[in-house]
């Protein structure tokens, strides 16, 4: 199987005042195309740092990071931005939609950033994703006019609209009630199964992790378990 995300002995050390904080102490992880994995662990174990490094938003102190066959480790800031634009879609706990734009405006903005040449007409990918996420009726609403679950679905649609190689979701159900959490997790599962979308999701929620193909557990900047789930 083709690896979409590959980290080899990835280390990340922050300097906080005069103290070195070892957020990642040597992470080696492979995520294959079409996989849906969950990363769990207590707060401060390095989950979010790993996600930000994987998305090219942080530069690791050492180790190697390969995204869809490209070695990101040696890339410049501009090259990492370009890689993120082409290959990564982020989903955040707090949705992070542009409040001044409608749901459609948020999607169009992501499309425009992806491709300057794409016009405002509804793209085929957008139409398909909106249908899958049941958002066709919500496109002209601004984020504050939508429920939390709907906002997160718009955020997911924005993350996948450009068909990235990898979705990085940082606690996507963290701000949702159980009913909306279930809807969002169903959507992520649907994207993975129907579109073959590769997803790496951070979560504290065992129920959410249970929807993934594999659960990676982290503690103190290290992976302590990496087990495939057996579906009943």
């Amino acid at each position, binding site marked *: 199987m083709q690896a979409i995300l590959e980290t080899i002995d990835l280390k990340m050390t922050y300097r906080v005042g005069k103290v070195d904080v070892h957020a990642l102490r040597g992470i080696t992880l492979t995520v294959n195309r079409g996989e849906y994995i969950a990363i769990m662990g207590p707060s401060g174990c390095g989950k979010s740092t790993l996600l930000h490094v994987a998305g090219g938003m942080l530069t690791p102190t050492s180790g190697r990071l390969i995204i869809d066959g490209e070695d990101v480790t040696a890339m410049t800031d501009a090259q990492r931005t370009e890689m*993120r634009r082409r290959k990564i879609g982020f989903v955040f706990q707090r949705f992070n939609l542009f409040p*001044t734009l409608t749901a459609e405006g948020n999607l169009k903005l992501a499309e425009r*950033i992806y491709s300057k040449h794409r016009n405002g007409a509804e793209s085929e990918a957008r139409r398909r994703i909106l249908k899958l996420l049941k958002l066709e009726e919500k496109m002209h609403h601004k984020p504050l006019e939508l429920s939390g679950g709907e906002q997160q679905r718009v955020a997911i649609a924005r993350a996948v609209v450009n068909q990235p190689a990898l979705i990085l979701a940082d606690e996507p159900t963290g701000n949702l009630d159980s009913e909306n959490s279930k809807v969002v997790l169903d959507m992520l599962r649907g994207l993975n199964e129907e579109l073959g979308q590769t997803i790496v999701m951070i979560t504290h929620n065992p129920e959410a992790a249970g929807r993934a193909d594999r659960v990676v557990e982290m503690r103190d900047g290290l992976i302590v378990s990496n087990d495939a789930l057996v579906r009943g």
Partner: protein
Amino acid sequence: MDSLSLANLRQRPLRTAVSMAGVSLGVVLVTLMGGLTRGMTRDAANRQSNVDAEIRFLPGGPISITTSNPLMLSARYADALLHGIQPTPDNPAVEARPPVAGVMAATPVGQYLQAAGAIGFELVDGVDFQSLKDTSRIRIIKGHGLGDGSDEQSAHEAIVDKYYAEKNVGLDNHPVRVGSSIKVLDQTFTVAGIYDPPMLARVKIPLKTMQELFGGADNCSFVMIKVEKPEMIKQVIDTLNEYYPGNNVIPTSEIPALYSQNLFAVDVLLDVVVGLASVISTLVILLGMYTTITERTREIGILKSLGASKRLIVSIIEREAALISLLGVILGFVLSVIGRYSIQSSTRLIVDLDLKWILIAATIGMLGGLLGAFYPAVRAANLDPVEALSYE
């Protein structure tokens, strides 16, 4: 991207309005100051040239249209040009000069710049009305012309043009009309007549009265000369330079250009205004965009997470600044038109909204805005994406 910029403008209407107002202030400053200078210069220059006399004979030295020492030239030149100079028993040493061939009429004019109204200034002419009639198209449309100023009544009479009569009130606070009293050179004058067309200063008093107010010498500021035929202008100028060297002789047609050259101080003032307007526009946009970038740090983080390059983030912020600047420039022009109307209807000032100053104002507004937004834009582009995303 444009929709994001537009949406941001709509989302923060107060900030948008304040930024627009700042840019428009600069535009109004430049447009009205430039227009005012041009309007007043053009009007004064037109009135200087709006006479039939083709030549102006002035004292030697640098040519100054407006001077604090107004009467520097002997008024007898007017008579000398027409009739020549002969030695007299009183003055046997004077060098004889024949009349200047081709001169049909000549009139001495005294000119003085006095403060007028709350804002502005105005020229006052001292004229010899009889010879003025011979060198210009002046006609009295109400009342009567000026006397020679040698008797008590005619010495304190004035004539004014139609514009002055329409735009001013007399000492009785009523619109100026024949019989009104007006203040000229700190003296009270009675309006004897209203004349047309406007030429030289709008207020004219007898030259003799002006001479007495300035020390009694039989002097004037310049002599206006009318030639027999237009094709004789050059010949007359050459003769004048030959007979009376050391003086300035210029064709009346060159007066408007001369006016522009004499406004060096005004040009400096305009440069200051242009500089001030640029600083205002730049600072207002800089502060506005800096504030908005701080407020929208998290949104910058989102853009970065979507893969927006630094250049794209700079361009999004610059587009927003350009939109605000454009709206500010348009608002500035609307306010300038209103300001022009207000100024012209309540004062004697004339404002020309000409293309040159409109373009300068628009350029300042737009460039100031783009320049002001550049630092906040670069700062936003260099934000750390993770820190920006966690900004509260």
